[in-house]
């Protein structure tokens, strides 16, 4: 169990030295994730859900960007070319949060982008990535969220362009651009790469910010992870391109950046990635950060799009 628990990660910079130990740990971790859920107690599931909530980046988006915000009560604004989206309250309050949701409701939302009332979500909610996550992991996240105190706070309506003002637009977008499918490990790659792929492409949904989108908001599959622009912030290319991307970074550089935010040249990022590091990647085990690093390092080198 302990391999899953974020527990003591704050002091985890003292590294074990041998790579084979790491590989062994990664293999064990992967083996653990295959265990049937029935083998875990409810407490274990909640604890695992807590870890996965970090890994899924739920907190940074579902918490308002103000100093005294209550985590997961929603209200964070996301500016897009289609208007401003506001994240909803996902505490287990029955009226204003998700307290009345069944397991099926929760899984439908994350895997298929459908609300309990059968409405379509806009892809500002990254169900397009979460669709690859396992049902067990999703239900562990639900168990954790439902273990938290309910907070009554009405979710704010999105403020969208007229042509987006109907959920029908979201349904049409999904019909054209979305397929519900779980992650399947690639047998040609090792456990570490596969764990990284699962974290990067699905739970961690890195590509939702780091990939450019078309005018209709569809991620450009040919330029995955090759950088983007969000609002007035340039989101960097994280492919292995040596000048446009991060091809010069070692796996250790990537792991360390995700842990404490240091760039390989000794600078510290002040970008929106700070929230991702604080609420997501720094809370993961070092093994999981190394898996993310291994996957990212193996991304094909892509040039960034012209500005």
């Amino acid at each position, binding site marked *: 169990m302990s391999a899953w628990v974020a527990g003591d990660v*704050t*002091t*985890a*910079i*003292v*590294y074990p*030295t041998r790579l084979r130990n790491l590989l062994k740990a990664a293999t064990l971790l992967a083996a653990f994730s295959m265990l049937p859920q029935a083998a875990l107690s409810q407490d274990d599931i909640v604890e695992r859900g807590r870890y996965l909530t970090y890994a899924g980046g739920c907190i940074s988006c579902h918490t308002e960007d103000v100093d005294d915000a209550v985590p997961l009560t929603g209200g964070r604004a996301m500016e897009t070319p289609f208007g401003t989206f506001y994240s909803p309250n996902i505490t287990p309050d029955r009226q204003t949060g998700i307290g009345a949701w069944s397991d099926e409701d929760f899984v439908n939302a994350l895997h298929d982008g459908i609300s309990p009332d059968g409405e379509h979500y806009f892809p500002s909610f990254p169900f397009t990535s979460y669709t690859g996550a396992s049902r067990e992991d999703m239900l562990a996240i639900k168990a954790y969220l439902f273990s938290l105190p309910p907070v009554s706070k009405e979710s704010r309506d999105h403020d969208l362009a007229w042509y987006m003002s109907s959920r029908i637009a979201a349904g049409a977008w999904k019909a054209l651009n979305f397929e519900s499918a779980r992650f399947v490990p690639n047998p040609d790659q090792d456990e570490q790469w596969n764990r990284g792929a699962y974290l990067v492409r699905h739970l961690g949904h890195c590509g939702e910010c780091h990939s450019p989108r078309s005018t209709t908001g569809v991620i450009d599959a040919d330029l995955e992870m090759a950088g983007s622009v969000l609002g007035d*912030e*340039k989101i*960097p290319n994280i492919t292995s391109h040596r000048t446009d991307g991060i091809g010069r970074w070692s796996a*250790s550089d990537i792991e*360390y950046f995700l842990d*404490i*935010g*240091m760039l*390989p*040249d*000794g*600078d*510290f*990022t*002040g*970008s929106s990635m*700070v929230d991702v590091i604080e609420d997501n990647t720094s809370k993961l085990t070092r093994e999981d950060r190394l898996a993310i690093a291994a996957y990212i390092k193996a991304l094909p080198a892509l040039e960034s799009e012209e500005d």
Partner: protein
Amino acid sequence: MQRKTTGAISALVISSALSFHAFADTTPEDAKDYRSAVMTSLRGHIGAASMIARGLVENDGHLVDHAKGLDAGAKELSRVFPKGSNVGETEALPLIWEEPEAFAEAVEKLQDATAAFVVAAESGDGEAISAAFRNVGMGCRGCHDRYRVSD
């Protein structure tokens, strides 16, 4: 109490025009370039120290040198933002001079962290070094979030 006093003094230095006791002909450009050079030296020490803290390079005593370099550089930050040095290609945001006390406080947080990092480096204790180095990073980020141009 002492902290408050130094904070007030730092704020005073930041808000006063070209506070270098350097040559009379130090221009705003010189002040800005000097600041940039100090920042580069901080980055260098941090990059090197991180490799030791990560265990990629053996700690044969050099960590203390980098820690002391960092601490000295961090102390300099109290005087490298003189009023009027917001010129040319600078990443420093005007907010630094609009709220000098808050800025001075943020700089002091880094200075406390670098002083603690020297103590940790001298102790040679790996866990203490890691924790102290992390705090140095938080100190850097504390200012870069609010007072530096983002890309």
